[in-house]
């Protein structure tokens, strides 16, 4: 058992190990944004009510605002910064641009990570089901139709869906 005010913590984000000295109150979201400097993951509500903070943990999408960084040692955390490989965008990123699945761009990393998580879960083919599966990500600019179109395009590109 460990009991300490400031904890030493090893966080593996996008394949890189980060050693942090951290107040246990720091959420996974704030660790990414304020401690590691990965500001691609956004804080919209900080209460699990908007989805802007969505990241993948061991491939599954979660809200990084509602959980503590100290609980995520020995996991693989993937953020929006990891999706593009150099100049080459992830197909979901490219599809979001093509279908204008965003306006201000603030919810966009969360939308894209959620969409990538959805693909891994086995994306439904029906628009209505995709919308339901993406309803944990609020877009106030309301680019919803473009988001659904982008996901449909990437889904259809995948051979086994």
């Amino acid at each position, binding site marked *: 058992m460990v009991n300490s005010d400031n904890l030493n913590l090893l966080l593996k984000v996008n394949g890189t190990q980060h050693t942090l000295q951290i107040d246990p109150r*720091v959420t996974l979201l704030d660790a990414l944004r304020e401690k590691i400097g990965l500001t*691609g993951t956004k804080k919209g509500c900080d*209460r699990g009510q908007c989805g802007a903070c969505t990241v993948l943990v061991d491939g599954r999408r979660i809200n990084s605002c509602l959980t503590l960084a100290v609980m995520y040692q020995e996991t693989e955390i993937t953020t929006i910064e990891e*999706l593009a490989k150099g100049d080459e965008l992830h197909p979901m990123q490219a599809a979001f641009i093509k279908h204008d699945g*965003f306006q201000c761009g*603030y919810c966009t990393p969360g939308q894209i990570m959620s969409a990538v998580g959805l693909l891994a879960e086995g994306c439904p083919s029906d628009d209505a089901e995709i919308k339901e599966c993406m309803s944990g990500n609020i877009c106030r600019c309301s680019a919803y139709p473009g988001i659904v179109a982008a996901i449909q395009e990437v889904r259809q590109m995948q051979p086994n869906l």
Partner: protein
Amino acid sequence: MNKTIGKPINRVDGRLKVTGEAKYSGEIPLENIAYGVIITSTIARGRIKHINTSVAEKSPGVIGIITHLDAPKLYARPNFGHEGAAGEKLAPLQNSTIYYSGQAIGVAIADTLERATYAASLVKVDYVVETPLTEMGKERDRAYPIEKFVEFTVEFALGDADAEFAKAEVKIEATYTTPTEHHNPMEPHATAAVWEGENLTVYDSTQYIFGMREGLAKMLGIPHANVRVLCKFIGGSFGCKYGLWAHTPLAAIAARQFRRPVKIVLTREQMFGLVGHRSETEQQIKLGATPEGRLTALIHQGISQTSIFDEFVETFTTTSRTMYAVPNLRTAQSVVPLNKGTPTIMRAPGESVGTFALESAMDELAWALKLDPIELRLRNYAEVHPARQVPWSSKSLKECYALAAEKFGWSRRTPEPGSMRDDRYLIGMGMASACFPMEHFPASAIARIFADGSVVVQSGSQEIGTGTATVMAQLTADMLGVPVEKVRFEFGDTELARSPGTVGSGTAASVGTAVHGAAKAVRAKVVALAQKDPNSPLYGVPEPDIETSQERIFVKNNSAKGETYQAVLARHNLEYIDANFDAKPEEEEEFAKCSFGAHFVEVRVDPELGEVRLTRVVGAFAAGRILNEKTARSQISGATIMGIGMALHEETITDPHTGRIVNDNLAEYHLPVNADIPPIDIYFIDEVDTHVNPIGVKGAGEVGITGIIAAIANAIYHATGKRIRDLPITPDKLL
């Protein structure tokens, strides 16, 4: 080379936004940053008797706490409509008076966010509590009339509307109510303040960097030349990031006092108190008509809320003075001061909720007359602006009705309410008109061609997600005949050319005209150099014979006879060549200028459970020239969806006893989610409007929210026979 204007090209900042590289105001890396957390009042009326910061100050990592007891002097700014306006006429932390719940009463600064947040919670406050005024209906006796709000007419009369209404053969008289709403952009308001000597730089999520500079400087009592405001990306706004609110001056004074950069990011809950809202409204509409459906009288009047210390008017009568040809017209509004914050502009302020009332009433009239709702609107089509009696710069509303009706399949609608069913569900079809006045503000821009052929165009505007950066690059690229990728639009910095706030759907028209002018001017400069240069293939060629394309200037129909920009600049040993342009709106008002549209909606109502689902939306819009079909469509579609939220979901609820907002979060304040949204088909009517501005733009940011709300209410009436005049139309109202 193909022109890009009008084409659905991708956003120029798309890559930055989908990769997470775009930096918003709270994300700018700054050395030695400290975190500020605002402390807010838990009562809505009274004063602070005692505020104890001693425990908070001793909390680990705390740098300091500022309250009204020790805050430096700040100078209150007028609210709205003045240069450098604040969101509220209330400088923070200047005395102990509490006017509304959620008012800023202090700020805690610490070395980490967690420590600052905790310190803020440790500040103990004793209040002298007075009974707050919280309910507009109960306080209606305190209402006072408004003649004019800033430059907007409110009180108006044409003919004798009351007498004509009294003797009208067909009458509709109804009251419509709309609740308090909050903008809730996804990015919380953020500001980071950095002092260097007497100079202050703020990275602020603002819709108006120049207004922020002016207002902040005046509030701090320093020259505005000492203040620089930057806003590179802003995560949505919709009006609540226009005025100066408490967090920005608080970050500035904290950074000055503690001699290090201070960042303040509002919490979502604070965004329900510190940064304005759309006021609730209670609107009465009276329509008088002939049995043939010609309007003889229109009266639109009612009340909205303002704060105890400010006057803000939700100008909901505007559309009633604009939409229909009616010879007798009267509008009047009053405001009721309550212990709530000062309302502010929110997407189509006035027009959104006002059009809901007017277009619901028109639907009621159509039903009373047994007339098709489109036909009723056509019979009262305003060929000139009804209140001002001047012609339109352009108006294609008839075409909007026709196109949207056809695409929607309006002819399949059976008029009788409750007559269309799908199994146990009731199907309803409704329509409404949309209208938003065109705004044009002064703006300046600089266009610069570099020796390597790259182009930069600058204007200190903001990109709030509307596609500003993209269309400005397009306007420049087309003028200079270069690909969009060669053009960089630089914005979001008060060091750049002065631009207006991103409000009133006016940025494309205003900044676009400036950018267009600057690009044209720099092109002319290059052409002039070539014409006068014996070494140029264009030597002596008159300007009208010159064309630009493929990054070259050349003789029309003889593209071989010409040269590149680089060649001209190189021969003259120029690193770059540039030109600026100051665009001003025309002063004379010989035309009325509005964007118009029509929304058609199909709903599916569960008659037993009261749940409403939209099944499809079709809209047709005429907004002058569309600069980019993709981003314009997104704006209209996004506004439509915000209107869906207003129609069905959104309502800020205040506890009547305490004046505290009870649903100050996104779990209980229901923004539309993906599952709420049906297919939305938006069409544009091509319009060539030579009167509005040189680029023919009328604006598309807000018109899309105006018609949809009534269209939904009208469709619900058609489905159920229930006329809901009180927003939002939640399931309980349909049981």
